[in-house]
């Protein structure tokens, strides 16, 4: 109805103000894909260059010998050598597979535990605080139990990863549930939703932002647990990033350690970008992206 009658007028204006838009505060308008990419890339480029420069200066200062702190000029070729090595990709693939499988399972378990604990009062009183307790438990404490239960198998690694990430994910969900605006709960209640339906249709979507934040933290836990857990069981013919990190340190190989750290950072950044994309689309839908600072 009204929308149609206005389209001509809006088209005209739309064209008129296109130039103006471009000048406006960035980010409010979606802008072109290239433009958005560029808006992300230049600050990243500068950040990377800055880090490299500081690093090289520290190394050049001669405060520490090269074998103690390798400089970019050593590490970058080392990194290049790895990237040229097919085995490297299989190591990354092994680790990523474990991370993703473990994380997916942790997500499922975290979701279930979070859902139960957040809504069942005695359960919450009984084991609510245990969740954070479990979160603070270092991965190595679980190693013996993990081996007892699963032997020298990949499942033992996954177990450690899940124990690392699931509490974090559950906590994110619980926080989200706790902060669901009461008016939305009441609205859901009035629409006749109870228990599972209320949970699925109202509480869960309302908690999504917090759940997403929990997922992000859970990923970090999963990854760190994995880096430790990959030493737990060394499975035939499967190199992994956790192993590489460990051996680089074992061999006092500064360049190798730094190269591995860069790889870990890179993966972390890529994963963060995925989360951020999800987050941005969520905020756009909720109408939170227009916030004026």
């Amino acid at each position, binding site marked *: 109805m009204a929308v149609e009658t206005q389209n001509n007028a809006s088209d005209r204006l739309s064209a008129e103000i296109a130039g103006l838009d471009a000048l406006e505060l960035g980010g409010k308008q979606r802008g072109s894909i290239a433009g958005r990419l560029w808006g992300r890339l230049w600050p990243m480029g500068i950040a990377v260059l800055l880090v490299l420069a500081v690093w090289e200066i520290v190394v050049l200062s001669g405060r520490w010998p090269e074998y103690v702190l390798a400089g970019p000029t050593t590490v970058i070729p080392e990194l290049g050598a790895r990237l040229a090595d097919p085995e490297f990709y299989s190591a990354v693939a092994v680790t990523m597979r474990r991370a993703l499988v473990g994380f997916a399972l942790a997500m499922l378990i975290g979701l279930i535990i979070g859902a139960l604990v957040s809504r069942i009062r005695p359960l919450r009183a009984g084991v609510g605080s245990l969740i954070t307790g479990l979160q603070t438990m270092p991965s190595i404490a679980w190693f013996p139990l993990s081996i007892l239960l699963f032997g020298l198998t990949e499942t033992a690694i996954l177990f450690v990863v899940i124990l690392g990430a699931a509490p974090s994910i559950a906590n994110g969900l619980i926080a989200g549930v706790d902060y669901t605006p009461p008016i939305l709960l009441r609205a859901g*209640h009035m629409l006749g939703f109870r228990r599972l339906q209320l949970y699925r249709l109202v509480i869960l979507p309302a908690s999504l932002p917090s759940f997403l934040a929990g997922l992000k933290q859970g990923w970090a836990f999963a990854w760190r647990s994995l880096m430790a857990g990959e030493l737990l069981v060394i499975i035939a013919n499967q190199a992994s990033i956790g192993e590489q990190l460990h051996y680089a340190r074992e061999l006092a190989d500064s360049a190798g350690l730094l190269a591995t750290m860069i790889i870990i950072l890179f993966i972390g950044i890529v994963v963060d970008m995925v989360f951020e994309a999800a987050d941005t689309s969520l905020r756009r839908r909720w109408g939170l992206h227009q916030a004026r600072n």
Partner: protein
Amino acid sequence: MTAPLTEHTESRPEGATPAVRLAGVSKMYGTGKAGILALDNVDLTVAQGEFVCLLGASGCGKSTMLSLVAGLDAPSAGKIDLDGRRVSLMFQEPALFPWLTVSANVEMALRAKKLDKRQRRASALEFLDMVHLGGFGDKRPHELSGGMRQRVALARSLAQDSDVLLMDEPFGALDAMTRDLLHDELERIWRERTLAVLFVTHNVREAVRLGDRVVLLSSRPGKVVQDFPVTLARPRRTDSTEVARIAAEITDHLRTEVVRHAR
């Protein structure tokens, strides 16, 4: 009723089934000195098919009463009886789900009905058309104006299949024209479904335009102080002289009540 009736006499049909019955209902928020007695010993009955309007000063306990009837809060004392009737409540705020589109918000109310996806969607769009938001089904709540959001909430609560309809200032943010059109729609639906409606408003004319009865609440603590039957024939018009006359009369009572109770 606890309050003495003035010039009007009780006009509610004696034999009508009561749909909502409040008996000695009190509601206290908080405890002790800091507590606020929002409702004090309220008795009120709404018959099936009856349209009751609730008037009262700001903060006198109207919303509290609706949320008690809706079962969202428990009364501190007294009893509320709905006899298993299904209630829907349109809140004072729009209370839309921000993660859903406008039409999906309305569809939420249709989940109880056995409809397939396409039918649900079509039905939601019908209700949106009814509140003059036909073209906005795919927008998100944050892209609407305040009055438009209120209309979505209205569509959502009308879409629900209930016996008792509780409405908390449903037309507060609308212009007079839109309001008049929606009065007609609401009246039509009320008749078709023989709903029991409890309708909160600050607009006395609106109350007279719509209500079979107009109930006056006093302020802190909220008590029923007056109960006016409105016997005008329907359809009524908000700007008719009869409505204006009765509204003026009720306003006078309201004024004296408000002055007598608060301050």
